[in-house]
């Protein structure tokens, strides 16, 4: 066995220190929270909120691979999300029947379609300049939305598609009670989605921390320099785009599995990508873990801020001005967003990482 090099000694030290860091225990705490959420907060509203945080955090992380790690902006991420959702709708309801095989086929179809489409868009636009990717994806996203609305006989149009699920995923399925919680098909679906999202997230983590991820970050920082170091940036960008888009389509399928109803507005609208962009900005670009912060912030804001007026009326029954202000919850959300951008210019996780890195550098010098 060869002697350890300074670099390998550093790596070993870092590995040992990992279990002592606060970040490691925060991650374990978060995972425990998501695992126990249905037992801790059994109401549908809470479980729905938790699963949407998980789904959108995974979607945001896949978007972050493109934007934060490769420096490519895609306005078509919502379209890939929609492809996944519609594949599930087609296979399980519109053109198929609820069965486990059809779930597998739907996800496989989503992966193949999104892979081919991402490849096509990349070849079409990246040869010229990365910015064309943004323009083409925006055009295609709008086109897919119109297509889904107009081809109503094929897609269900604005009425959408209600999705029926097989066996263990149906709401009526009852597996008895565990720790006071009724284990229904909803709970099974929750854990199924949590498991897949966790797998996807770990895959993305591995992807970004691999030598390949390092090259992608180099491309993001300086395309010409990465090329002069011996990397075909075009190929690497394609790998990043197809990977990110495939994950987005799988997440779309999981979303459809949870909400059991899809329509163009909820699955293909460009509002989805704008929400994702806000979540990335809040969490911090190129941080991956920041996606949880961004998703949690937006989902909690969208769930609880509309109820603020009710709270205000209970607490201050005669403060009409306050009631009116609370009614416009989007305004409050806007103010919160501005405050976050102001105090965390690199997103919450990005700013925390920067401060930690600066402290470490200070200790080293």
């Amino acid at each position, binding site marked *: 066995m060869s002697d350890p090099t*300074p*670099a390998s000694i550093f790596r070993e030290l870092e590995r040992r220190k990992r279990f002592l860091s606060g970040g490691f225990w925060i991650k374990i705490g978060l995972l425990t929270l998501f695992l126990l959420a249905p037992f801790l907060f059994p109401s549908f509203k809470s479980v729905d909120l938790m699963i949407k945080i998980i789904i959108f955090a995974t979607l945001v992380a896949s978007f972050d691979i493109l934007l934060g790690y490769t420096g490519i902006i895609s306005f078509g991420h919502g379209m890939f999300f929609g492809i996944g959702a519609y594949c599930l709708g087609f296979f399980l309801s519109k053109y198929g029947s609820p069965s486990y095989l059809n779930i597998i086929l739907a996800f496989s179809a989503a992966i193949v379609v999104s892979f081919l489409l991402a490849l096509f868009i990349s070849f079409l636009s990246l040869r010229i300049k990365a910015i064309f990717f943004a323009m083409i994806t925006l055009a295609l996203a709008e086109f897919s939305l119109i297509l889904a609305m107009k081809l109503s006989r094929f897609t269900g149009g604005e009425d959408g598609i209600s999705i029926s699920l097989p066996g263990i995923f149906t709401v009526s399925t009852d597996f008895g009670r565990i720790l006071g919680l009724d284990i229904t098909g909803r709970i099974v679906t929750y854990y199924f989605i949590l498991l897949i999202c966790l797998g996807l997230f770990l895959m993305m983590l591995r992807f970004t921390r691999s030598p390949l991820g390092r090259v992608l970050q*180099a491309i993001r920082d300086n395309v010409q320099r990465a090329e002069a170091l011996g990397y075909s940036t075009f190929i690497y960008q394609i790998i990043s785009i197809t990977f990110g888009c495939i994950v987005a389509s799988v997440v779309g399928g999981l979303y459809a599995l949870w909400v059991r109803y899809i329509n163009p507005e909820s699955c293909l609208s460009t509002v989805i990508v704008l929400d994702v962009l806000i979540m990335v900005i809040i969490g911090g670009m190129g941080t991956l873990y920041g996606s949880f912060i961004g998703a949690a912030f937006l989902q909690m804001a969208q769930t609880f801020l509309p109820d603020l007026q009710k709270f205000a009326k209970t607490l201050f029954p005669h403060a009409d001005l306050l009631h009116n202000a609370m009614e416009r919850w989007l305004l409050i959300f806007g103010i919160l967003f501005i405050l976050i951008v102001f105090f965390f210019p690199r997103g919450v996780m990005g700013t925390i990482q920067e401060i930690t*890195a600066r402290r470490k*550098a200070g200790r080293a010098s």
Partner: protein
Amino acid sequence: MSDAVLSVEGIHTFIGRHHVLQGLSFKAEPDAVTVLIGRNGAGKSTALKTIIGLHSPSEGKIIFKGQETHRMKPYRVARMGIGFVPEDLGIFSELTVEENMRVAMFREDEAAENRLEVIFDIFADLKKFWKGKAGNLSGGQKQMLAIARAMVNDTTLLLIDEPTKGLAPILVESLIEVITEIKKHSVIILVEQNVEDEDLKSKYLGISNS
């Protein structure tokens, strides 16, 4: 005289509508550091970028190790064994020093790890800031990182664009020592205005596009 590692023959390069290189020809041989000198805008940096493939010449030939490279993509040229240290250093500021070094490695094998140890001996600061962000390094440290990155592979030819620009005289001296060290195993083409060092045994080539 030893055989030329690189031969540039009548290169013409346009940047937009500007005809920057107008029939540049020279050879880089292993026994001397080839230094391209000329006034600002003469096309010194363009010459290096054309060699690495970042600019495509409209006419002429570039032959490296007996192979024509002027139609190749930059990444193919780099993989043939040409290292490039640009004037702006091209440091990936969001990556750590370690990541900057590793991204430059064609292979993370034992030979590369050994070269890394040699680099640590020459540039002790890099070891100190190994896990720190490259963007937080000082100008001199960034310069060292840029050169160290080019040394991490077994490069036959190293193109360095104005390495002493903006450096304190004491750092320039140690940089010349480093270049003298690199010269033992790589052929060097340098774009520089201030290097007049006997140890380098340089071959000075004037370049002008007027």
